């Protein structure tokens, strides 16, 4: 194992999410963004492999996004990675999961040979979890998803996959793509030294031409899917409020029991 690539995405932070008081929907402010929480576990795993390896292992962070996504890459670098690559340019804008995976793989082909790609199982904004598996398919290597434990050898990896009803043990040869879950490890906090080094480490920004991509397969133009519409459903409800301090415990318990006994409002049946 010589070279590990970690795919990261910049997402709005959960702390910065506020609700619109009238509609009960989410307000997302552009300025507050961070590295996708699950990706931190992928970065942590890569850094651990690097630290425990007998030979020198390099860790590269790859992301696609607007110029601000550089800060997500720097955050990952501060945990102990070696270099960062950001795919940035108008041609990437509006990419769905297919066009994103295409761009990432196109870029990967131009980097030094990669032994292992790690990524978070899904991002907290889009929540599709599709890019990792698509990268494996387009790159043409084995895929391990829902990985909660990973052991690396020179030629292969063994893993535990958290699937319905239990834990599956699997292994596969390298190179491979591994999509990880939160249970995998506890991400370290960046140190001051790490932050300083991260600030000085090499970060390459590449556009579509630099990665030799077919421009027709990038961004919105290359995306098979289109968003037809977006609606913001309101979950604001008029609450029937009972106060124990005024109406007493018994009245409150009666209300609770009535509410529990009420028939379902909306049966899941969609005829």
């Amino acid at each position, binding site marked *: 194992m010589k070279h590990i690539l970690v795919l990261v995405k910049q997402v709005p932070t959960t*702390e910065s*999410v506020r*609700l619109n008081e009238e509609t*009960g*929907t*989410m307000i997302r402010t552009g300025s507050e963004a961070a590295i996708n929480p699950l990706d931190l576990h992928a970065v942590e795993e890569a850094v651990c492999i690097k630290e425990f390896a007998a030979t020198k292992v390099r860790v590269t962070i790859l992301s696609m996004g607007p110029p601000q996504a550089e800060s997500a890459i720097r955050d990952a670098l501060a945990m102990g990675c070696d270099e960062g690559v950001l795919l940035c340019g108008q041609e990437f804008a509006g990419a769905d*999961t*297919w066009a994103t995976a295409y761009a990432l793989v196109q870029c990967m082909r131009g980097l030094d040979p990669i032994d292992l790609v790690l990524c978070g199982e899904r991002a907290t904004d889009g*929540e599709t*979890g*599709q*890019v*990792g*598996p698509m990268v494996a*398919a*387009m790159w043409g*290597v084995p*895929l391990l*998803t*829902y990985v909660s434990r990973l052991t690396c050898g020179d030629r292969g990896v063994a893993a535990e*996959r*958290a699937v*319905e*009803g*239990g*834990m*599956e*043990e*699997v*292994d*596969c*040869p390298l190179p491979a793509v591994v999509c990880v879950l939160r249970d995998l490890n506890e991400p370290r906090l960046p140190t001051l030294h790490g932050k300083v080094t991260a600030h000085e480490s090499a970060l390459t920004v590449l556009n579509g031409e630099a990665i030799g991509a077919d421009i027709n397969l990038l961004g919105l133009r290359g995306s*098979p*899917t289109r*968003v*037809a*519409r*977006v609606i913001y*459903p309101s*979950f*604001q*409800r008029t609450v*029937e*409020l*009972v106060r*124990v*301090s005024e109406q007493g*415990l018994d009245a*409150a*318990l009666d209300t*609770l029991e009535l*509410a*529990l006994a*009420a028939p*379902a*409002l*909306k049966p*899941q*049946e*969609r005829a």
Partner: protein
Amino acid sequence: MNEARGVWVLGEQRDGQIHPVSFELLAWGRALADDLGVPLECLIGGHGVVQGANQLIAHGADRVRCLDHRRLGTFRVDSYAQPIEYLIRKHTPEILLAAATTMGRTLMPVLAANLRTGLTADCTELTIDPAERLLLQTRPAIGGNVLATIKTPQHRPQMATVRPKSRRPMPSDESRTGDIVTEFVDERLLDSRVSRLGFTEDLTKGSSIQDAEIVIAGGRGLRTPKRFGELFTIAERLDAVVGASRCAVDQGWVPYAHQVGLSGKSVSPTLYIALGISGSPNHLAGMSSADRIIAVNNDPDAPIFQVANVGIVADLAEFLPAWLERLRSKDEGRGT
């Protein structure tokens, strides 16, 4: 792409038995196929699945294609993706659906990548736009606070994974008839680069919060791990599953698998009971789409009351024991 016709769903099996999520997919697929005026086919991989194929017909399929082979007994992405891709290229369905299970969410992106087509994850609503003959795929995003409708105008098949429990199966109709076809594919298509070494069944976890009809969740307001533990007693009574706020998980009262919210799991049960949860945006984003919400909290201004149908302003230290006491006295009244 214009010749692409027909709706396909990818059935699931465990140990050769048809998994019920296949029947949910058939209910979705049946409605779409009827709207389009095309047949509904179910493709299922596994070992010994031919025996269950009749059930798939009874639940709405016009044709069942069985990829039945001992090497397909358990899901491995290569051995499933390769023959399925082959069959899709051969028969060119216009729509392909799978369940948003760990299998569907692993297999479908691989298929979509290789077939150069669009895939929408975790859909909760699927309809046909009759004018354009397009599949409209609606999915919640950002923890259910946004509903996005996606379409795949130019590429085929139009692919979607469907969130389990988002539709009830149709009742089994034994009088339905249909074809059952056993597919034979080149053995090399069943090769897998990933080997399965073993499986450890998880007997402790019980049903997941995402599948539950009723979720009873606790937060900081419960104040002690012991009081949080009482939720399990009530959950058993109500046939509910225990959820938790991030705070309760961070306190170590309950494992992460129970966490509801943007940083945990999004749930959409018929009934959500929030005890001692004030309702941070992170939490609300993961549960406010529940059909009915009951909240108990000591702060009348807590945001949780904005999304609740019924709210009780009470200190859980007083309210929870009283509730348990009432449940107990009921038991005694019934002589149990």
